[in-house]
């Protein structure tokens, strides 16, 4: 009797007519499926903190600063060493979140009343004085992995790729906000800011001359908030008024008064 496989196994389906996959090809197919699944990203859209400045929020792909991610902030020219404006920018972001903040630093020259002035209540900030920059990164990672914090700030000049990747993963895992405040010992070292890292966005906060007041005195500080790099957005810059007592940035008054205020911000940004 002649053995006829199609009779023995019933009707043959289309898939089975293909040549059988080897074990290796099967593995590859499985991995491809997993990658597809991962890329589809079935997680809910990431939590976002809007800046409250329309021009800035519309520019960003998620309409605000992504939480559960790592961001880098540095000061402009002279402030690259002291990071005063950058510290206030960071404090303003954290002021609008809820929960305790871990601030890791190597040199304690941060003045708490100023942070309170940007809306970050002293009860919320826990300072961790780490011995060196490597320790700052380790403490940051510990804080981000633990969760339960509104955000973790680390003041460091060095941010190697591996360290930033670890921090980004830790932030993703717990949904915490990681902010690296880049600060260098001398202005020349600030060129390290051009080196790549795994942070989601990179900001530079430079001071601008403030608007003249009708009387003697200084008004609200002005910053040039520069977005140097961001996943899914072009670089750009905005000239804004510094954080107020609730940590909010604002568009300068003379720009608001103009009818095409929002467009002005956009155009300037595109120019940068």
């Amino acid at each position, binding site marked *: 009797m002649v053995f006829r496989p199609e009779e023995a196994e019933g009707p043959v389906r289309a898939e089975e007519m293909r040549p059988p996959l080897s074990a290796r090809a099967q593995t590859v197919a499985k991995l491809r499926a997993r990658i597809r699944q991962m890329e589809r990203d079935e997680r809910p859209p990431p939590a976002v903190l809007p800046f409250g400045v329309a021009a800035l929020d519309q520019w960003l792909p998620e309409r605000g600063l992504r939480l559960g991610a790592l961001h880098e902030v540095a000061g402009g*020219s*002279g*402030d690259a060493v*002291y*990071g*005063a*404006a*950058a*510290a*206030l*920018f960071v*404090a303003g972001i954290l002021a609008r979140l809820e*929960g*305790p903040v*871990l601030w890791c630093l190597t040199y304690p*020259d*941060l*003045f*708490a*009343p*100023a*942070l*309170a*002035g940007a809306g970050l*209540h*002293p*009860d919320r*900030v*826990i*300072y*961790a*004085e*780490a*011995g060196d920059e490597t*320790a700052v990164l380790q*403490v940051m990672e*510990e*804080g981000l992995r*633990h*969760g*339960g*914090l509104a955000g973790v700030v680390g003041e460091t000049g060095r941010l190697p790729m591996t360290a930033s990747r670890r921090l980004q993963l830790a932030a993703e895992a717990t949904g915490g906000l990681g902010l690296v405040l880049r600060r260098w010992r001398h202005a020349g070292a600030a060129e390290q800011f051009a080196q790549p890292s795994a942070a989601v966005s990179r900001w530079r*906060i430079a*001071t*601008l*001359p*403030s608007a*003249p*007041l009708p009387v*003697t*005195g*200084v008004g609200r*500080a*002005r*910053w040039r908030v520069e977005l140097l790099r961001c996943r899914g957005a072009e670089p750009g810059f905005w000239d804004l008024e*510094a954080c107020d*007592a609730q940590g909010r940035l604002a568009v300068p008054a003379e720009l608001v008064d103009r009818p095409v205020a929002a467009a002005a911000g956009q155009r300037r940004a595109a120019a940068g």
Partner: protein
Amino acid sequence: MAQGQARVPGLHVHEADPAADQAALERLGLWCLRRYSPLVALDPPDGLWLDATGVGHLFGDDRAMLEDLVLRLARSGIAARCAMAGTPGAAHGLARHGYQRITLADRQIHEALGVLPIEALRLPDEMVRSLRKLGFEQVGELCRTSRAALALRFGALLGERLDQMFGRLAEPLTPLAPPELVRVERAFVEPIGTAESLEHQLDLLVAALCTRLAARALGVRRLDLLCRRVDARTEAVRIGTGTPSQDPRHLLRLLALRLDGIDPGFGIERLALVATLVEPVRPQQTSSLVRDRQQEIVGLVDTLANRLGASRLYRTVPVESDLPERAVSRVAALAPPQAPTQAAGWPAILPRPARLLASPEPVDTLALLPDHPPSQFVWRGIRRQVVRADGPERVFGEWWRQDTERHSVRDYFQVEDQAGERFWLFRSGDGMDPASGPMRWYLHGLFA
């Protein structure tokens, strides 16, 4: 007794109560433990040993400590004699048979010990009597006699006591344990040395400790892990927690971080966990509706505090002071919040810089007196033109702190240069009165 009562009218007679004496001695020992020395041992029936190593300087010097001790005991009706010496045996003898109430051992300690009566050697009465019959009166005479003959006649104890007195033989003290000390121990038949077995044993120990703590409603603030090695050395690890904890997982995690500091050598034969600082914990009602943010980060704070040191993890609280360097004070990271609802406590209308220099740095300026801001200044080699300025904010010295601050005045200005960078400058002195300061300009902080 009848004779005594006849001689002293109104003589009170009490039955001897050795058990009560012992208990009283222990109580006294505990008092000493809390006040004078971390290691106190009983020397019954009427003595206490205090290990005064590194303790004296807390009272000034050793003599001051002993005087303080005698004085305090005298106030509560105890006539005490004390001595400090290199060995427990010597201190015992000098305290009881020395010439003074307070004896400090010095270079002539051997002579001083030599003239002590033989009772100072802590020997049984029987032995003392037979020694006296043989004509021995002083310790020194015993020292000069052949040891072999003495040992033949009186046994090994006599030589042992002599050696203990002169420091030739170590004498371990049995420290008095305070009743609140929670201690758990495990001894092993086979010494352990691998990391896995150490972790496993630690697991069991911590669980046992936490059960004991929970039974007494106590939580650990400081925990010592003592590893007794085969070669009689002890490896120790200390961890601290910000809030009293009786959570085995938390304690285990903190210990595990420090385990690599332990060198097991040829093996560990005994592990002990001692809760050296405990505090009562009150059971707390937890709610799933209200998130207690502080509770969530207790674990993190402890981990970081054990890694960096507790003093390097802190929060800041406002202090009522106009001098900026005194306006901030540090508190423990888990200290109760100062003002959960109200404003931060620093005046919000006064400008304060984001970065405050550790000490004000002198700058060269061009400024008009008495109350004009500088028109330009040089700081760290860079000349800056002042475009806008605000001030002065006058800060007076706090005369109640230091006499030198009685007249001192600082005038603070917030200035902005061409690039928009803002600085906090001050002039020491009010611009008029030389007594208020030398009119020098300093840079104290940086705004954004």
